[in-house]
């Protein structure tokens, strides 16, 4: 059945094997280390059962970086295969698996946890809350994401990976054309983590609406928090569509339904429609928090409040609403009709307007400011040209008749890497550098960070600019090889060099982190960047209850105003006689165990092992039942303990 000779198989299999061996070795090392240093209890108590948003944020961050590595290795493999025509480094089968997992991992298991890391790390601190609205649910969200990601990642080891693209269009992804477990892995991994994402959306929406400190009106909220609010709206109304699309495809595959099959009246196009009802808002889900971070970073490092705050907020909300009216631009060429295409083309272009306003406001935040070139600011500045060009090519794609020429070509690939990397990845890295001291209490080494920055940035343009040219030369996406003589060789070769440069950049970043863990400078002030918002009024890292007394907010960028002497700095420090016992949620192992059951369920469904599913179903039901009957879920931190902690930090007054 396979017409293409597998020349690459001898090279590829060891690579896959190698990565498996890597995974196993690392796991063994971790188990060994934990046992040797008697850290199992610590791991369980401090991390696996935690409901503290700060720790959950850190776990999201670690997972996102790991997935960036995994997806990045996929990218390097693809780029190696495409470096020259007729390469045999990968064969079609593996190439198809690799671009599928690359896209899926990067969007769902890299970008999503990265933004959730930032939500968790910053939002409660920025609005003066002690935790999120539902800490227990927050832990469930994380573990659902984590085990969903794990499910997709083990597909390379057990059974085979999905290979129908991250979009997984039927009928190619139906049983008739993809009958291995790979596609099931995809469907279940995404469904499980999707539940977590919806829960996070609800959680942060309610947190922001209901848990702001007194005086923190909506109009005084930091722009990052606003961006999270906008992203949550997108999550809430977009993710259910993904759930439905995946569930229906699963019904087709598992129970023989005919939603998207060719037979018995099924309609594959409906999947495409449902997928992009989610898929397009999804790209704004991952970009809006980045916009928020840029607003914070640019204003902090320009020593100037964000220009046009009102416009910025309005633009965020406009993007999150109009972002729901554009999804057809991913299938203009499906032939829905000139009227449909025109409507969705124009709706798509409209997004450029509020986005452009944001760009100009960032520029004018810097104008007449004082720009300090620290790492977060470097990434923020690098974002602007990259995203402006990528967004502009997006607008070009939105011109429906012209899209007939760009669609599924490398022009498209270049567009979305430019916005995804230049927007989301740069944004998340800016956020990571910015809040790193707040998370861990030490600073990252600047010099290594600059190396990483330049390699990654130069590599980026070298990698993706030639891909625009390739698009105009007619190179389509998802081809594992191409013949010579079409003029594609040179741009592809250059592009591959760029990808390697980005890889080197990433290695510098890892080096920077490891180096700084050992030698990094401590952050004793809690406010290393001369920040403006509430989180910088706390010590680094913040105590686990965040605020000993909740401050009353009297203005936008209140902490900055306090430092300028316009407000009293003492408002942000706890006074001894005002302390009360602090109400906190208890840790719980159940989120982790519940998610484990979901993992078992997913694995069982992937391979059609019914007993496994039944057991897992009972496990899930039992966990939910136990939770419902649990009334003892919280506790109080006694005043003495708060006094002890705060005076050790030297913050106590009176």
């Amino acid at each position: 059945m396979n017409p293409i000779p597998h020349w690459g198989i001898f090279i590829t299999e060891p690579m896959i094997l190698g990565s498996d061996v890597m995974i196993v070795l690392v796991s063994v090392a971790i188990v060994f280390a934990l046992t040797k240093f008697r850290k199992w209890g610590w791991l369980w108590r401090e991390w696996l059962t935690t409901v503290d948003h700060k720790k959950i944020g850190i776990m999201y961050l670690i997972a996102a970086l790991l997935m960036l590595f995994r997806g990045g290795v996929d990218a390097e493999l693809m780029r190696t295969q495409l470096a020259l025509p007729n390469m045999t480094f990968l064969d079609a089968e593996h190439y198809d698996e690799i671009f599928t997992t690359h896209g899926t991992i990067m969007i769902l298991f890299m970008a999503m946890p990265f933004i959730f890391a930032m939500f968790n790390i910053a939002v409660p601190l920025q609005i003066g809350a002690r935790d999120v609205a539902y800490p227990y649910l927050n832990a469930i969200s994380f573990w659902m994401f984590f085990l969903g990601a794990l499910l997709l990642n083990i597909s390379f080891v057990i059974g085979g990976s999905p290979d129908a693209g991250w979009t997984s269009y039927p009928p190619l992804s139906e049983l008739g054309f993809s009958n291995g477990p790979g596609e099931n892995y995809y469907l279940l991994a995404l469904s499980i983590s999707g539940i977590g994402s919806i829960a996070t959306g609800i959680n942060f929406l309610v947190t922001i609406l209901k848990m702001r400190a007194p005086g923190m009106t909506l109009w005084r909220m930091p722009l990052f928090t606003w961006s999270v609010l906008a992203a949550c709206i997108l999550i809430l109304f977009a993710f259910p569509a993904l759930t439905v699309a995946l569930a229906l495809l699963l019904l087709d595959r598992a129970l023989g339904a005919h939603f998207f099959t060719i037979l018995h009246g099924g309609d594959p196009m409906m999947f495409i429609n449902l997928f992009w009802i989610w898929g397009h808002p999804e790209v704004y889900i991952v970009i809006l928090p980045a916009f928020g971070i840029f607003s914070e970073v640019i204003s902090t490092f320009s020593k100037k409040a964000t220009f046009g705050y009102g416009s910025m907020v309005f633009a965020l909300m406009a993007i999150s609403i109009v972002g729901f009216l554009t999804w057809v631009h991913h299938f203009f060429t499906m032939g829905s009709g000139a009227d449909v295409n025109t409507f969705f083309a124009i709706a798509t272009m409209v997004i450029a307007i509020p986005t452009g306003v944001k760009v100009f406001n960032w520029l004018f935040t810097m104008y007449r400011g004082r720009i300090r070139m620290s790492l977060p600011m470097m990434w923020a500045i690098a974002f602007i040209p990259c995203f402006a060009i990528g967004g502009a090519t997006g607008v070009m794609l939105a011109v429906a008749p012209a899209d007939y020429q760009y669609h599924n070509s490398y022009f498209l690939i270049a567009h979305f890497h430019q916005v995804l990397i230049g927007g989301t990845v740069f944004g998340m890295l800016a956020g990571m550098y910015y809040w790193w001291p707040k998370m861990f209490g030490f600073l990252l080494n600047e010099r290594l960070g600059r190396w990483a920055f330049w390699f990654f940035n130069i590599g980026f343009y070298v990698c993706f600019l030639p891909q625009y040219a390739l698009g105009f030369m007619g190179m389509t996406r998802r081809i594992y090889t191409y013949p010579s003589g079409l003029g594609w060789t040179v741009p592809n070769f250059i592009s591959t060099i760029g990808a390697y440069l980005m890889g080197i950049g990433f290695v510098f970043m890892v080096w920077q982190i490891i180096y700084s863990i050992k030698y990094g400078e401590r952050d004793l002030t809690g406010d290393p960047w001369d920040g403006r918002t509430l989180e910088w009024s706390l010590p680094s890292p913040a105590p686990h209850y965040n605020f000993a007394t909740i401050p009353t907010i009297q203005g936008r960028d209140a902490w900055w105003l306090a430092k300028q002497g316009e407000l009293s700095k003492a408002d942000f420090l706890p006074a001894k006689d005002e302390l009360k016992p602090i109400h906190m949620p208890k840790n719980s192992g159940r989120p982790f165990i519940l998610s484990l059951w979901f993992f078992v369920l997913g694995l069982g469904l992937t391979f059609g092992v019914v007993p496994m599913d039944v057991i897992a179903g009972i496990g899930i039901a039992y966990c939910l039942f136990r939770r419902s009957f649990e009334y003892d879920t919280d506790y109080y931190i006694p005043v003495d303990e708060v006094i002890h902690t705060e005076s050790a930090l030297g913050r106590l007054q009176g």
Partner: protein
Amino acid sequence: MTTTAHAPAENHHGAGHIHVDYPDRPVEYQTEDGALKILGFWVFLATDLILFSCLFATFIVLRSHVDGGPTGKELFDIPSFVAETFILLTSSFTGGLATFEMHRDKRNRVVGWLIVTVLLGLSFVGLEVKEFVHMAMDGATLQRSAFLSAFFTLVGTHGCHVSLGILWMTGIIIQLVRFGINPITARKVFIVNMYWHFLDVVWVFLFTVVYLMGVM
């Protein structure tokens, strides 16, 4: 030193052990946590609404894709879906009465109305299962056509929601019997009823779009 919140009080929400943040609010809103959870549940309902809207969209698009198999007009039994509709409407009403009695602090009546609601829910699910089995015996299965896949999935998803609601409500009845009405159980009663009313809304559209338009 109060380090833990204690097990719920025995009978009255005024009883000392549960930490009441806002004594002059309606009982379900009296704890900070309760207020947050009710809003959160509203938000969840909004997502569930989108979920159903996507299923509805799929159903409407695939409605005519019967592939030569049975159509809605041939399949739907008017008395049976009309009965299902009235049962569910009534159960929404009795659920509402439970909330009403809860605000009057009448534990036994709340329990009574909830039991009635559960029983109505059970008979609804029973009728629906009977309807499905009937269809399947006539060869109208999920596998027969895109239309039937969409039908069973849309109506079945609602049915699953109702079944889950029944289990959930039963759990809450037990908790009410054991702990009485207090801010925590009251919040649960309130939320489960929101859920129940919401399912009624969804059903009204199933009734209209699937059944009535199906037999038109």
